[in-house]
């Protein structure tokens, strides 16, 4: 009799454990679906925001806004590309200056480097 009760008790505990497991599974399932929806929503929002950024960068929109504000832009007669000394030196660092020639050049650029200029078109 005692063994029977023990057996029934064990079976009940196992059954409850199984049920608990199923309930947990369902609860986690709800959470999973909620997170999946959230991820989809965020991805959708991200796409919409990216689209808005691209729209704002469109030359057609920019030109329209310039016209609305009566701003008139002209192509430059000459283009100046200014390269700061630090940036130039940093660029060389990125190139992993290893040899002493490169290191010397880096040092020289850092101390002596100036701005670079270029003409856009002959005037």
């Amino acid at each position, binding site marked *: 009799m005692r063994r029977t009760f023990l057996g029934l008790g064990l079976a009940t505990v196992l059954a409850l454990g199984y049920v608990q497991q199923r309930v947990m599974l369902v609860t986690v399932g709800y959470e999973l*679906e909620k997170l999946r929806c959230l991820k989809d929503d965020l991805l*959708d929002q991200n796409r919409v925001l990216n689209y808005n950024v691209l729209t704002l960068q469109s030359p057609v929109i920019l030109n329209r806004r310039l016209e609305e504000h009566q701003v008139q832009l002209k192509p430059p007669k000459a283009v100046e590309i200014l390269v700061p000394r630090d940036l130039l030196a940093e660029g060389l660092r990125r190139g992993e200056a290893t040899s002493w020639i490169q290191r010397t050049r880096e040092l020289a650029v850092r101390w002596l480097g100036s701005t670079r200029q270029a003409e*856009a078109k002959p005037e």
Partner: protein
Amino acid sequence: MLTAAQKTRVALVIMGFILVTGALLSRLFWLQVLHPSHWVTIARRQHLQVLELPPTRGAILDRNLKPLAGSIRLTSVFADPRHLKNPAGTARLLAPVLKKSAAELEVLLSHQDRGFVWLARRISNQSAAQIRALRLSGVDVVMEPQRVYPQGVLASHLVGFSGVDTQGLEGLELAYDRILKGEPGWRWLARDARRRPVGTWEGPMVTPRDGLELVMTIDTAIQFIAERALDQAFQKWRAKGASIVVMNPMTGEILALANRPTFDANQYEQTSADVRRNRAVTDTFEPGSVFKIVTASVALTKGVVRPEENFYCENGTYQVAGRLLHDYRPHGWLTFRDVIAQSSNIGTTKVALRLGPAPIYEGMQAFGFGVPTGVGLPGEVGGKVKPPSQWSRPSITCIPIGQEVTVTSIQLAQAISVIANGGYLVKPWVVREIRHPSGAVVKAFKPIVVRRVIPSETVQQMREILTAVVETGSGKLAVVDGFRAAGKTGTAQKVEPSGVYSISRTMASFVGFVPAENPVLTIAVTVDEPQPLHTGGVVSAPVFQQVATETLAYLRQGELLKTAQNEIQ
């Protein structure tokens, strides 16, 4: 001790119990073991559902990978009127969010015989959040895909558009629909008694295959430059239509292609099919004097004429082959170079008479007229080129000066590129690459040289002649500051319904390339029925000048920046 009667009753109860239990167990055995599929099917139908996973339609990018078409998902609102208790109250709550009148919504919500009605399609994220927050019974939202075009009107004829079901309807969206659309996937979705999704089901699943991306040959900046210049001319000359094609003559890559009137691809349904037509590839017209480049090239190649040879241009009027020919301005003696530079019809006809029909016809075919260029855009036509057997007596005076023959704008760009690139017919193309969304190139397209059309000696002579057109001839308004340009003007009279050539209705065109010595750009401009002036030299040449100037400055700056970046690295 039990009596005999009591024992009988107990035995009956036990037997009854055994019978009932046996019957139940038999039924259970029948249901669970012998015929389980029927009930399993019903149960599965109740809580399992196949959920389609739509693919993302591939983006369309310009040559610098700037998106011209993309896909987003927007929220649409629907209702089940059968589950609404107070349609009027619900309509009042929804009206300000959906920006519709409460009366209009109430009519929709009062359809008690319907289980589904759309209340609003593709609303903003903010409005969708407000709808969700209202938690209205019988009203729900669903996500729907939406094709978007961040550049709006820019390159809309090239890119085209897709419909509400994201199926390509025009332009590249239509031509490459199969590649762009991808393939949907699916998964099983378990739902509980309240129809809420439960994510525990681990059934089979097919992931969607997203559409591939197209990388075009066009450059958004050059496209903008071309469209702005074309738009200004279109409005200034109150034209019926206009087209521009900007091409790399060496490779055949289309850098820009635009038409006027135009439309915003995001709101394509608000415009007529006439506006949405890609005129540069679908509309044919008599080219007029720009066609003299074919006659001149063939004549020089065949050796029937020399650039310095003199022709008498009959002071503007010439009776030949049963037709009275006129020049726009009367000329006396002109060299062949000046015949083309001054666009003399009489001088060109005299050259054509020396050539005869067969070489002219072969030349037209060699330059790519009469057949579609194969650019890969929907609706492209090849124009009309008659074989000599179909020529009438006056045809020899018409075809060499661009009458009795019809062409498209893109064919003109392709033809002038022959002279720009050293004598080869190159196939124009608009798609550079087909890419996977991850960036891996699936297919890369290369330039296609169709054939050699004219020898390099003729190319050199033609370049000098076409440079003279811009510097001293009819195309002076096409002069590009800082560079030598070459080109040809054209003013083709349109045919009236009565069959005679119109005086006021013309097709004004200019085709050219720049720099003349080492061309990087070929530009073909056509303006349909400009008013009040109507010559190609006045109407179209300035568009060429503006586009060439700004594009060269843009390309030059790009090179300078690249050089500077290389120096930094």
